[in-house]
């Protein structure tokens, strides 16, 4: 057990970088998700299609491929970010693409009657969206956004492959130094779990709040 403690400093240093990347990615995810999601709902094709293309590409390829693309190929086109920023951008765009579907689904799920009432009160479309529809939709989006945040946290481990020294790559370094393979990886997994835990609890309490009173599940005879 004591042998594990000397592993902690390196791992926790990596964990700090992991948290930074995750926070950055989530911060990027929200505006991207709303922009792409609301664009998707537009009646104008010129507004819809860029959003569709963006979402399909980022959802249809794996994060790892996207990370390599941004890291190896983008510099050739003259755009070079440092690896950490690259990870934040890729993970943010990726989560934002999935998030756009969450925004779209929640917005269309708000009852039609709300649109009718707002229209009857002569509210213009943008005002209806802002004051009536989105406030109700956002509550529905929260659990899914929580899940996307956990996913972004897990995906930071892939960023270790583009030379970022976060938790996963520090773990690999420790394994090659100490050969305590099993212990190191288990410790790494535990730290990831601890980082994810607050988000998981938050998502679950929101879900419970929303599904209060619905009778689901087996009856014990």
């Amino acid at each position, binding site marked *: 057990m004591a042998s594990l403690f000397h592993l902690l400093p390196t791992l926790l240093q990596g964990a700090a970088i992991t948290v930074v990347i995750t926070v950055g990615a989530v911060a990027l995810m929200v505006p991207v998700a709303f922009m792409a999601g609301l664009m998707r709902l537009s009646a104008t094709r010129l507004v819809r299609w860029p959003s569709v293309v963006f979402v399909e590409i980022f959802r249809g390829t794996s994060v790892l491929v996207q990370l390599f693309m941004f890291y190896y190929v983008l510099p050739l086109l003259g755009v070079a970010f440092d690896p950490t920023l690259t990870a934040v951008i890729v993970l943010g765009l990726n989560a934002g693409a999935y998030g756009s579907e969450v925004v779209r689904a929640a917005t269309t799920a708000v009852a039609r*009657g709300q649109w009718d009432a707002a*229209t009857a*009160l002569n509210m*213009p479309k943008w005002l209806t969206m802002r004051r009536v529809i989105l406030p*109700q939709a956002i509550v529905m989006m929260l659990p899914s956004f929580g899940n996307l945040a956990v996913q972004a946290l897990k995906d930071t481990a892939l960023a270790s492959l583009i030379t970022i020294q976060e938790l996963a790559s520090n773990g690999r370094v420790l394994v090659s130094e100490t050969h305590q393979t099993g212990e190191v990886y288990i410790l790494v997994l535990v730290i990831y779990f601890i980082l994810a835990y607050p988000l998981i609890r938050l998502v679950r309490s929101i879900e419970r709040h929303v599904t209060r009173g619905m009778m689901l599940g087996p009856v014990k005879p």
Partner: protein
Amino acid sequence: MIEENAAVRLTAVRKAFGQHVVLDGVDLEVPLGQKLAVIGRSGSGKTTLLRLLLMLDRPDSGTVEVIGQLLGQKRVGDRLVKDDEQHLRKVRSNIGMVFQHFNLFPHMTALQNITEAPIHVLNQPVSDARDHARELLGLVGLSSKADSYPRQLSGGEQQRVAIARALAMKPRIMLFDEVTSALDPEVIGEVLDVIRNLARGDLTPEGGMTMIIVTHEMSFARDIADRVIFMDCGAIAEDASPEVIFTNPQQERTRSFLGSVLRR
């Protein structure tokens, strides 16, 4: 100049949803100040009729006019084209509607529901809007519920808030779409009383509110309507005064409908 225009005029209005024809070439003219009751079976087109008056749905063909102005369309040369949203809203501002399922905004209090549109659409100062809203809440008997959320109110109370909300925009024409059909029997009366007061001119300073009421409450319709139309299969089957329709309907269809409804 006295207003010569009808409050509402529908000309040859046709609406179908897919294969199902809901309104089949309807012509209707409602003079200002009239209280019109619309009765008929479900699916006869009553709700669609009201929805077209607000352009919640668009007619496939035909025109809708509100106080002499085309709704949702404008004349370009000798053609009719779709209107821009700004002008549509200008014409629409004369009409308010109360829905069967209330459609109150769940994330706002009763007071906020009523002040929302006057503040953001009519650009009323907040304090004026709030004063007017409290006045309306008093008139519908809900002064104490100003800060309650819809989920804390009974169905009847929610519907009365919905009526106050519509009235806050000072429409000249009010539409009521089966507003008591979703209510428990005990609370239907309180909502009908509010509508009755509105018809009698007690709730609005001007009085003379044009009202189009789709309802199943026959005795209520008989009580407050100046005119009743019976709709069947997307067309107006009979159009007469309440006395004629309810005691001596001319059409067989009207007779059989009333017979089945009043047998309770």
